[in-house]
């Protein structure tokens, strides 16, 4: 079955080049995508000789009326099921454009094919059945176009013949879908009433839609702009491989954005090493002079021997990507098993891969549903925002700064299971990874412990707001100090006022808040002090991170005062504000506090006095080797 003519290449011998735009046709199943494609091919004179007659004959032989969609449904399997199952690429011409048309399927099962198609598109046609109106797949595809970064979207209201070409019906659908898309930040380039079956509105404004003043589908396609040049952005050259076929050591990759030329000073991220480009190698002629821009697959040599590996990103030193172990992404999920917090994944950012853990999930919704109920996990064909913690540092950019490097895919069992855009990276973790030489204290730990009569520790008090954490922390601080120790209080709110004043209350910021508290507390503990941290720290995963950082010095105390008691106390008035809706992201009145499962100590302040509770903590610190109980113990530690 040959149905694609090859006349559309811009590589004509007379040297004329026409802009090539790739478009995708998306929308709910049975709203007429394949019919529109068949009609477009016919109207633009793109069908091979005899094709139409042949298909009509096949239809007659099968005893079925001819359908335009048969043009595309060339696979046996498709005809059997009556649905288009995959992306095909077809070429045709409008007045001033070469169009590569990707026919994306509408069946819910095949969203991964729609994404495969739409990810390559410069523009999209979203098709809606005039009779059925906007459906869940319509909304889902609209959302995914937005997520994939397809900005030029033309809306086609098909099957107008089924609603007697009623202008009112058209307007109702037009208003609904325009409002939906604008809510996502996408402005439709046109909304066009058509009958793909009969041809109205496809290439011609017929009498039946005489009330319509806008462009036809062919005209709308003719106005699409090709992909935006990436050369103006900062240089990003992700390294695909290092080749040593001869005495040259060639670093190979494709320039994703920006440009480079021999002599440029570059930085290799995430290691942060500096070098100069010695030459740009090629074949059959090498080296090549002149600037190489975005889109080129190149090979460069450097002026010094540095360790470079696949996945590194080469950039100009003045505008390097950020190095991070932690990022937030907006993703779509294609795997059968929903993505849940704590899941282990493989993340690919260009050629770089890293194992990763999902630290938090937010805004998990089905983009097809109007009432977006938030879920805990991201289901198949759903979207959401996730925080990921990476096992290896990677270099990346938020997608708003670089659409090429600011995106990633997620693999499960060796198969692509989802993808998304990098919303933000936590670059605070290791801002200057090169040349950090930690300075050790001049004092030995045993000198300190001999004076304080305790070892260093991180005492972590977690619990609901107003559960009594700060009160207990202060009492403990006083008790330890009275006994000659060196306690230091790190209160969550106090630290937020200074060190963490740049952080808010999103899951990512809360995680970072906890990470910083843990780092500071651990530093104190390593220097022999007892750091007392009082922080709500509602997320189990975040507290697990703190425990990992502080390691054996970590002592977790769950201040398990009942929620009703906490709300009744409400010394800061937070519960009242939250109930009134004036305090977003407040832990306490929802179910978002995750209780510790293996705390060293659990204290309910509703049933114990402060002194009693402090005794219990002191006892725990003795029994777990932080406080020295007797002189014998002290001697053993000197």
């Amino acid at each position: 079955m040959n149905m694609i003519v090859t006349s559309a290449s811009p590589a004509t011998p007379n040297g004329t080049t026409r802009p090539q735009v790739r478009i995708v046709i998306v929308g709910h199943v049975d709203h007429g995508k394949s019919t529109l494609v068949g009609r477009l091919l016919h109207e633009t004179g793109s069908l091979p000789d005899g094709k139409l007659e042949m298909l009509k004959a096949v239809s007659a032989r099968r005893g079925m009326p001819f359908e335009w969609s048969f043009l595309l449904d060339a696979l046996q399997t498709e005809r059997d099921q009556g649905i288009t199952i995959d992306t095909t690429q077809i070429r045709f011409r409008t007045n001033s454009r070469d169009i590569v048309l990707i026919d994306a399927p509408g069946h819910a099962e095949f969203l991964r094919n729609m994404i495969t198609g739409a990810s390559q598109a410069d523009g999209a046609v979203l098709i809606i059945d005039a009779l059925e109106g906007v459906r869940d797949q319509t909304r889902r595809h609209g959302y995914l176009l937005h997520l994939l970064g397809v900005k030029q979207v033309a809306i086609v209201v098909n099957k107008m013949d089924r609603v007697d070409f009623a202008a009112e019906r058209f307007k109702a659908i037009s208003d609904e879908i325009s409002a939906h898309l604008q809510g996502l930040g996408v402005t439709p380039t046109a909304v066009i009433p058509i009958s793909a079956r009969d041809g109205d509105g496809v290439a011609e404004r017929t009498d039946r839609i005489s009330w319509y003043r806008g462009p036809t589908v062919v005209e709308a396609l003719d106005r699409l702009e090709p992909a935006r040049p990436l050369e103006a952005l900062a240089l990003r050259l992700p390294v695909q491989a290092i080749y040593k076929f001869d005495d040259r050591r060639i670093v190979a990759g494709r320039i994703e954005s920006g440009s480079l030329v021999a002599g440029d000073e570059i930085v290799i991220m995430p290691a942060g090493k500096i070098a100069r480009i010695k030459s740009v190698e090629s074949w059959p002629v090498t080296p090549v002079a002149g600037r190489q821009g975005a889109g080129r697959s190149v090979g460069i040599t450097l002026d010094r021997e540095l360790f470079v590996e696949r996945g590194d990103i080469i950039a100009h030193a003045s505008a390097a990507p950020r190095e991070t172990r932690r990022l937030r992404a907006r993703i779509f999920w294609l795997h059968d098993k929903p993505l849940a917090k704590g899941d282990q994944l493989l993340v690919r950012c260009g050629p770089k891969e890293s194992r990763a853990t999902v630290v938090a999930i937010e805004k998990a919704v089905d983009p097809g549903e109007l009432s977006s109920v938030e879920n805990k996990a991201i289901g198949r064909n759903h979207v959401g925002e996730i925080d990921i913690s990476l096992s290896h540092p990677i270099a990346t950019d938020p997608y708003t700064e670089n659409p090429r490097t600011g995106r990633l895919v997620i693999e499960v069992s060796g198969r692509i299971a989802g993808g998304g855009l990098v919303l933000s990276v936590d670059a605070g973790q290791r801002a200057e990874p090169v040349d950090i030489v930690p300075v050790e204290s001049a004092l030995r730990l045993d000198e300190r412990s001999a004076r304080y009569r305790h070892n260093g520790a991180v005492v972590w008090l977690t619990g609901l707001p107003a559960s009594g954490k700060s009160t207990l922390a202060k009492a403990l601080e006083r008790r330890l100090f009275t006994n000659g120790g060196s306690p230091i209080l790190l209160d969550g709110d106090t630290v937020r006022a200074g060190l963490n004043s740049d952080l808010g209350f999103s899951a990512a910021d809360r995680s970072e808040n906890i990470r910083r508290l843990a780092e500071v507390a651990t530093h104190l503990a390593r220097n022999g002090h007892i750091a007392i941290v009082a922080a709500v720290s509602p997320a189990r995963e975040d507290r697990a991170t703190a425990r990992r950082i502080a390691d054996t010095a970590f002592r977790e105390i769950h201040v398990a005062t009942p929620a009703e008691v906490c709300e009744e106390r409400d010394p800061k008035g937070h519960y009242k504000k939250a109930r009134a809706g004036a305090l977003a992201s407040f832990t306490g009145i929802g179910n978002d506090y995750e209780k510790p499962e293996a705390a060293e100590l659990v204290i309910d302040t509703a049933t114990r006095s402060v002194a009693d509770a402090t005794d219990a903590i002191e006892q725990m610190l003795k029994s777990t080797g932080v406080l020295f109980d007797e002189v014998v113990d002290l001697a053993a530690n000197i």
Partner: protein
Amino acid sequence: MDHLDQLEAQSIYIFREAFARLKKIALLWSLGKDSNVMIWLARKAFFGRLPFPALHVDTGKKFPEMYRFRDHYGKEWELDLRVEPCPPIDAVDPTLPPAARSAARKTEGLKMALAKSGFDGLIAGIRRDEEATRAKERVFSPRGLEGNWDVRDQPPEFWDHFNASPPQGAHLRIHPILHWTEADIWAYTKRENIPIIPLYLSQNGKRYRSLGDQDITNPVNSTASTIDEILIELEQTKVPERAGRALDHETEDAFERLRVAGYL
């Protein structure tokens, strides 16, 4: 960057990904215009050499010009050339129509080569615009243990991220020129001055647009005797590229059946 530069850069990217992510790959060299462009692109990707074998699955029924071309350029391009013979026709599914059955020998030859050498990736020069079932292909296309293609369950592939982990014992097909058209191939062949088999150029009013086995490939009517003339002809023709390939036209689904079974 012009259109051909973009195509070239994309193909080079695919070649480098395949070489980096798979353990043992080979390039399927059919000696035709597409696979010659492919070898050229691979040499660009790897700075003059083909760092993996070129596999010719030989039906023994190619045109003499094709064998001469293979022997000459295999040496000149310093290819690690492996010629893999195909089993006789009796070994092939007798329910296929005659030409398809003849072509299916190649699928069997391919399976034998895979079993013998344990490749986990085979690079093939198919293009989306050639044929409707090929249009549905992925760039990295997983094959089942029997070499078969499951068109209904293809993994998602986007943003140049490829699924490169075939299950144990299965292999991947890699398609570096999937996004090229017939006209692109000719324009690039001319620009880069890539050698071609003269059968593609018109003699006595006929030329081959696509080269396969001698007995199941026919020339088309054409006066195009230079690449420039071929490009002009392609601008105007509505005759499909594989019109001269008998196996495509026997029954509606013959080619689809071949591909599902592992044909290129």
